């Protein structure tokens, strides 16, 4: 196991400290503490390896949570950290819970997995749906309260610090991602490429695998790709993580998650025609297999995208 990079250690310490401080003091306190750390490292002299000097400097400051508590007075500091942990947990629970409910609703699930907690959203009227969403939110606030109480005021914030919120990105990453997005766009939008990739059979018998629903979703997929592309262009311009790039990434992730959920609920995404050298039974089996594969891929993608959206929103809250 390699030793952690000293600069990364300092950045992680300051990030944890920032996270448990009240917003109005976070910036000035972290500037002060960064200067204290550098002064102690300088004082250690060139004979002491930088990694060791950093560890000594951080040890002299104590745990970020303890320092924040000392700055705010013990009770207030602990409460602020626990409050922050609570409000970090709620959107994570709510995002995941809501996605499951939407998926169950659009999939036409009639029964609850856990009665009252994991079930489809009511679709009888917009008001009923709104109350369903509110019910999910209230249930998750309750979950978060219980979790923070079980973990304790100190362990809850420490546990949630392991959740990395930063969005490290370099101009090189952005450029590579843009190339990848351009390739995806070419596959989706150039009929010759699309038909060559998603087709079965040869010559006259060659037939497209994409159903009407898949073709209808292509403009929406283009919109999502455009949002991600915009985010990477913004990253190219800014050179690093900014509130604007985070907001674009959050929006793109949310739209992509919605697209994944919509894709999961379409009946005519894939069609394997029996004109492609297959019997009708073989075509039905292959269609079924492909539809299930798409469902699983869309479900996993949807969960990951919602998690990405929540992390971006939390990071924005941290920075603003």
């Amino acid at each position, binding site marked *: 196991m390699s030793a952690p990079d000293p600069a990364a250690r300092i950045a992680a310490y300051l990030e944890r400290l920032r996270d448990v401080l009240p917003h109005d003091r976070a910036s000035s*306190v972290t*500037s*002060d*503490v960064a*200067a*204290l750390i*550098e*002064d*102690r490292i300088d*004082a250690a002299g060139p004979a002491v390896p930088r990694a060791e000097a950093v560890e000594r*400097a951080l040890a*002299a*400051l*104590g745990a970020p949570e*303890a*320092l924040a508590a*000392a*700055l705010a007075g013990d009770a207030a500091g602990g409460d602020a950290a626990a409050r922050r942990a609570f409000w970090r947990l709620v959107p994570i629970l709510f995002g995941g819970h809501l996605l499951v409910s939407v998926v169950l609703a659009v999939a036409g699930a009639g029964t609850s997995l856990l009665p009252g907690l994991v079930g489809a959203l009511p679709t009888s009227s917009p008001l009923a749906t709104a109350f369903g969403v509110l019910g999910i939110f209230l249930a998750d606030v309750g979950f978060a309260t219980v979790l923070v109480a079980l973990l304790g005021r100190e362990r809850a914030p420490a546990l949630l610090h392991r959740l990395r919120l930063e969005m490290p990105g370099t101009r090189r990453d952005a450029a590579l991602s843009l190339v990848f997005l351009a390739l995806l766009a070419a596959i989706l939008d150039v009929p010759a490429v699309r038909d060559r990739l998603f087709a079965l059979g040869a010559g006259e018998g060659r037939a497209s695998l994409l159903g009407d629903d898949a073709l209808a979703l292509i403009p929406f997929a283009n919109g999502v790709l455009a949002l991600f592309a915009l985010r990477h262009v913004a990253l190219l311009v800014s050179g690093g993580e900014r509130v604007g790039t985070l907001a674009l990434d959050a929006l793109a992730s949310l739209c992509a998650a919605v697209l994944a959920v919509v894709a999961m609920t379409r009946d005519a995404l894939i069609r394997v025609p029996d004109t492609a050298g297959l019997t009708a039974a073989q075509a039905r089996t292959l269609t079924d297999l492909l539809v299930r594969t798409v469902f699983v891929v869309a479900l996993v993608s949807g969960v990951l995208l919602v998690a990405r959206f929540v992390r971006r929103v939390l990071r924005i809250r941290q920075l603003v």
Partner: protein
Amino acid sequence: MAEARAPEERDARNDAELRRGVLQLVALALLEEPRYGYELVRMLGEAGFPTEEGTLYPILRRFEEAGALEATWDTSRARPRKYYRLSEGGRRLRAELTEAWCRVRDATDAAIRRTPS
């Protein structure tokens, strides 16, 4: 070995307990001239008050927010450094704490003198 070190460790712990109460006064006493955080940590150590940044910084921050210290960033260096210095309010606070310390010290001395050895 542990037995031989035990009294020294006890002494260090007792000293630390007693010093904790007067650390604020000593820090204020050392801040007539502008000093940066680590410089003050070092000076406190040399003055017999070994202190870590994690203990000193919250004190400096509280004094700064209460107006007892004036803080300025020196940006002329390669890396900015924050200097602290007593304000007028800080001088008044130092005088009050000094008086309080003298009262406590006299009362402690008197109590110890009355105690049969």
